[in-house]
């Protein structure tokens, strides 16, 4: 192409300029709207899924509880967690002395009473009683210690229960606010 023609306003520009102009023309092209009601016509043919309810463990079926109960349960859970943590720390730091005093206390003062308690306990639940007795005999702990261990184990279980209660859906609100 003759370069002198670039100065002529009636002549097209160089190839780069032609590309730029083509880009401008293409970029200026509009998008088109479908006719009104298009979305409604599509939506009328859409099958909106109804998701299956989330699988909940058999031991936990959330039920609506009043918000006040939930707050109380949450507070109790925190209290139980705090106190059991402190108790654990205290036991750990005084374990030797506690063990000695518990053993002497159990054997010297209340062995017979605690053995009677264990027998009663075994009568109520032979399995638990046998287990406690087995623990007591295998570890050499006094029966009282085995029972205490069972009680200590109950603390986290009760904490779990309180936690689940505090997480239950509140009866004042809605459990599925998605739709």
């Amino acid at each position, binding site marked *: 192409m003759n370069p002198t023609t670039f100065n002529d306003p009636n*002549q*097209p*520009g160089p190839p780069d300029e*032609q*590309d730029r*102009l*083509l*880009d401008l*023309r*293409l*970029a200026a*092209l509009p*998008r*088109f*709207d*479908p*006719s009104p009601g*298009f*979305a409604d*016509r*599509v*939506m009328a*043919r*859409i*099958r*909106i*899924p*109804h*998701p299956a309810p989330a699988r909940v463990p058999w031991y936990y079926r959330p039920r609506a509880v009043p918000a006040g109960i939930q707050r109380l349960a949450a507070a109790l859970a925190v209290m139980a967690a705090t106190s059991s943590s402190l108790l654990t720390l205290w036991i750990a730091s005084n374990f030797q002395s506690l063990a000695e005093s518990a053993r002497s206390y159990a054997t010297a003062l209340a062995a017979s009473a605690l053995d009677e308690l264990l027998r009663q306990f075994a009568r109520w639940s032979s399995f638990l009683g046998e287990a406690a007795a087995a623990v007591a005999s295998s570890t050499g702990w006094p029966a009282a210690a085995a029972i205490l261990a069972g009680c200590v184990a109950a603390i986290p279980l009760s904490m779990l229960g309180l936690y689940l209660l505090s997480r239950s859906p509140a009866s004042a609100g*809605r459990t599925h*606010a*998605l*739709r």
Partner: protein
Amino acid sequence: MNAHPDLSTLTDQEIVRLALEGREAAYRELLRRYQRPVFSLIYRMVRDRELAEDLAQECFVKALNALHTYRPEFKFSSWIFKIANNAAIDHLRRRKLETLSLEGRPDARDPEEAQATAISVPHPGESPLEELEAQELGSAIERAIGQLRPEYRACIILRHIEGRPYEEIAEILELPLGTVKTYIHRARAQLKEILGPLRE
């Protein structure tokens, strides 16, 4: 109470997840986002407003009813444009076959036999819809795009009107990246040839 009052701030993937949870508003949001670009693509491909609307509707119904098959590691736009482009290309292929049959038997031995087996269709008068189409697609550049091969047309529309990157166009059209670049280069050359010298 609406858990997500402003769906417009969410990504496509988040909207799809909400739709699969059964939220009608999420389906509507996907439609709101894509009805214009999808309809525009199909309209420019088939150049018939009524038909484009039918194809776009089928495209959305197909996509939204199969939303569970969408893989969120890919762009939703690529997925929906792929469905739309396939619908348009399928239609153009079918129409080509129908056009051939209207022009007479493809295996005709001579022009007389082709003429004898051809079907003549009366040309209808221009309807209001056709007038609208003539306005919308009547500019020189729109007519030039309409003269491109369907593959080139799709590339040009996606690249220059929808502003999609080359990689996404390759994904939508299921073509190698190099082929997409070649198609766009050739399409641009053809457009310049059809349009002649461009001026400001």
